């Protein structure tokens, strides 16, 4: 796919793009690395609108930094109580209004399907920065880019996704993204009640992705190239007692790293709670801060490709 076919496209799910599109974005992200500090003027006079109806640190700040480094400007809010939606304005009306101000809209919302609705309403391209438990395509773009940089490619990797797979959008989104690559083996590790949702595993089946589901990560450590750890999604449990039941189910330990395959990396979409203790940070396996840093180049690449 050429750069021009990206222009104006929405990015709601990682499934919206083909493998070749993702590979082009990786190449573009490599190019963007040189602009991360000093910037460029590629998107001069373009405006990014950020609508964050849910808390965000990395995603929002990296989008805003990306647009500023590309020479554009940023409008928006990270606290919905300061918008008219707090007085009852619909999301659709809010998007229609912003559409006339911005060249690209980034939205995060707890309501699932919000980004898809925004894309239907807006003429400007819409990027989904997370909707409920469903999709988080730019996190996945960052995750895949990090794996590609670490291993030179993604085909054939053995990757465990660990934790709350039912409610973590980064987990389902990553599973969707990995389905684009060849001979990837997925280890879906979670308590039984927090298994990956059936629409995701059906997609893996339809895409002929080899995967297994288990609650025990330890026995697979000698096989894994990537241990992708997720946070228990406290905000999505309707029953606090259920959250407490699963809290602390998985914690990465130094002993686990000793038993792992040489070169295995530990990734996390962040923020972490207690699933990765501080002592892991200084091990050669830890990659979550590099992963977060790669989000800047990945989002700069995406913006530079889709903004008119």
């Amino acid at each position, binding site marked *: 796919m050429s750069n021009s076919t990206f222009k104006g496209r929405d990015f709601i799910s990682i499934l919206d793009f083909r493998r070749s599109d993702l590979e082009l974005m990786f190449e573009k992200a490599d190019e963007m690395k040189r602009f991360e500090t000093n910037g460029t003027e590629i998107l001069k006079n373009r405006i990014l609108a950020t609508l964050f109806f849910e808390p965000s640190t990395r995603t929002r700040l990296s989008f805003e930094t990306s647009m500023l480094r590309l020479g554009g400007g940023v409008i928006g809010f990270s606290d919905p109580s300061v918008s008219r939606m707090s007085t*009852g304005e*619909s*999301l*659709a009306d809010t998007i229609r209004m912003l559409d006339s101000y911005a060249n690209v809209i980034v939205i995060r919302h*707890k*309501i*699932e*399907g*919000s980004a*898809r*609705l925004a894309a239907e309403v807006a003429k400007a391209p819409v990027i989904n920065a997370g909707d*409920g438990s*469903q*999709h988080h395509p730019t996190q996945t773009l960052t995750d895949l880019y990090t794996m590609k940089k670490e291993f030179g490619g993604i085909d054939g990797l053995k990757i465990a996704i660990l934790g709350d797979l039912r409610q973590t959008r980064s987990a389902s989104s990553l599973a969707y993204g990995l389905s684009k690559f060849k001979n990837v083996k997925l280890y879906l590790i979670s308590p039984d009640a927090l298994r990956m*949702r*059936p*629409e995701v595993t*059906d997609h893996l089946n339809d895409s002929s992705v080899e995967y297994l589901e288990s609650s025990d990560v330890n026995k697979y450590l000698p096989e894994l190239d990537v241990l992708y750890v997720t946070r228990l999604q406290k905000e999505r449990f309707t029953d606090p007692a259920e959250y407490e039941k699963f809290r602390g189910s998985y914690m990465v330990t130094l002993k686990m790293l000793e038993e792992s395959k040489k070169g295995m990396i530990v990734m996390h979409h962040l923020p972490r709670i207690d699933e990765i203790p501080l002592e892991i940070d200084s091990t050669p396996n830890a990659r979550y801060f590099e992963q977060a840093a790669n989000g800047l180049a990945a989002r700069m690449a995406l913006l530079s490709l889709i903004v008119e």
Partner: protein
Amino acid sequence: MAEKSYSVEVPGGEAPRLLQLLRNKTSSLIINISWQGKDRIEFTPNERNTSLDNLLVKIRLVCPSAKIEEKDDGEVKQVSEVPVGMWIEGRSISCPNRNCVTVQPKEPTKPKFRLVSWNPVTLQCFYCGRYIKEDVIGQQLS
């Protein structure tokens, strides 16, 4: 111009589940309960029923094994199966996910569902991606 009519044959005892679906949508309706171990419903859609295709799909969603025949000016033909992957639009089915944008009262969405499987009947919401299972679909339609 002669009106088209339809004959729906379903397993014995299943016909009552379809009645709610057909209420106010037919100009004539004949029900034959447990005819040779099968229930049979014959109906002529009323003129106001502009979403006949959707009605036939809904009959299949409530009774996947329904055999549907169309009678048009003396000619009888089988109404073909709805293929897996087809999209079904409309508000007669509602996404059961309370966190889906389609059930937010102020948002102008037009619910749309992909037929994932006939056995068991499973739909997938276009907006939130969640699966809707047979029992929920049956409850909503019948």
